[in-house]
């Protein structure tokens, strides 16, 4: 029997009670949140629970919500149950001043590079990651470019020749 979103939700609420929140369904895909401290417990449950079996980590990424004070940075896990062909999204939020989130590399080896990328662009510090360093940008970069913290035209940049661009 196919796994429905209601069943997934029931299972999660049964296990975690009111610690899993924000259930919503967009385009038929279930999405929910929890506190960031719980992320490994929830992920582990999703992987191991006999009926859920979300064994494949499709994607792991960051989102920056600058107006969401204290919860600026979201880490989003996209999970896939290959057997039932069901996908879900799981989000945790963290403060951008101290963006520590437990690493999922113990559960999914594929999380390694995805977490490095998320660190590279959003500065999420994945606690326990075996090799947390920049993966795409130059190593000397000292900021996290996808955070919405910079003016569109960055005035502090000196690598652009102002004369050529009429500034």
């Amino acid at each position, binding site marked *: 029997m196919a796994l429905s979103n209601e069943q997934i939700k029931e299972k999660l609420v049964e296990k975690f009670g009111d610690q899993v929140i924000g259930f919503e369904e967009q385009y038929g895909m279930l999405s929910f949140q929890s506190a960031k401290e719980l992320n490994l417990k929830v992920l582990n449950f999703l992987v191991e629970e006999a009926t859920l079996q979300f064994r494949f980590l499709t994607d792991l990424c960051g989102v920056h919500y600058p107006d969401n004070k204290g919860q600026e940075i979201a880490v989003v896990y996209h999970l896939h149950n290959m057997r039932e062909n069901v996908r879900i999204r799981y989000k945790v939020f963290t403060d951008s001043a101290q963006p520590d989130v437990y690493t999922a590399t113990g559960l999914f080896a594929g999380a390694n590079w995805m977490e490095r990328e998320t660190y590279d662009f959003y500065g999420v510090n994945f606690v326990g990651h075996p090799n947390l360093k920049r993966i*795409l*940008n130059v190593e000397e970069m000292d900021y996290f*470019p996808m955070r919405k913290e910079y003016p569109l035209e960055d005035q502090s940049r000196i*690598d*652009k*020749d102002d004369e050529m661009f009429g500034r």
Partner: protein
Amino acid sequence: MRPVSYNIKKKPLEADISMAEMPEGHQGQGFFATTLDNVIGLARKNSLWPLPFATSCCGIEFMATMAATYDIARFGSERVGFSPRQCDLLMVMGTIAKKMGPVVKQVYLQMAEPRWVIAVGACASSGGIFDTYSVLQGIDQVVPVDVYVPGCPPRPEAILDGLMRIQDLVGKESLRRRNSEQYKALLESYGIQ
């Protein structure tokens, strides 16, 4: 009209094999005297070996430039080399990400003197439309550039025009230029040697 400069100098086909123009000099029966600069310039400019460093869309335009219709071989640059050790002319075509910058520099360092560099397209010249954190804002931040070809992408005619301008530079270059103080200072400003 497209804003590219064409070669408007008429050069009628004199023979099946087209010859380079003779440099200035004195000649009489059985001898011809000119400066060494001229002779070497003539030889160098008509046998440039380009090293294409094509990273994106401008590189596609260079492929057209190499192919039969535009045919860069007509300018003595037939032998496109893919080893920097053997090439004289580094042609950088396309967007150079900051992470790629050291690679461009490394390739430049591997070329033997005398070497020339041509930046093809807006990206290689100035970063182009990519005013962003990840893109090098012009390759002249890492290596000295001799000729810039504008355009996004430049037409093959424009790339050929750039090549001809390089040929002019090569043909007129003094043999002492590469030993001069200014040249050393230029390289030093890029942290080379």
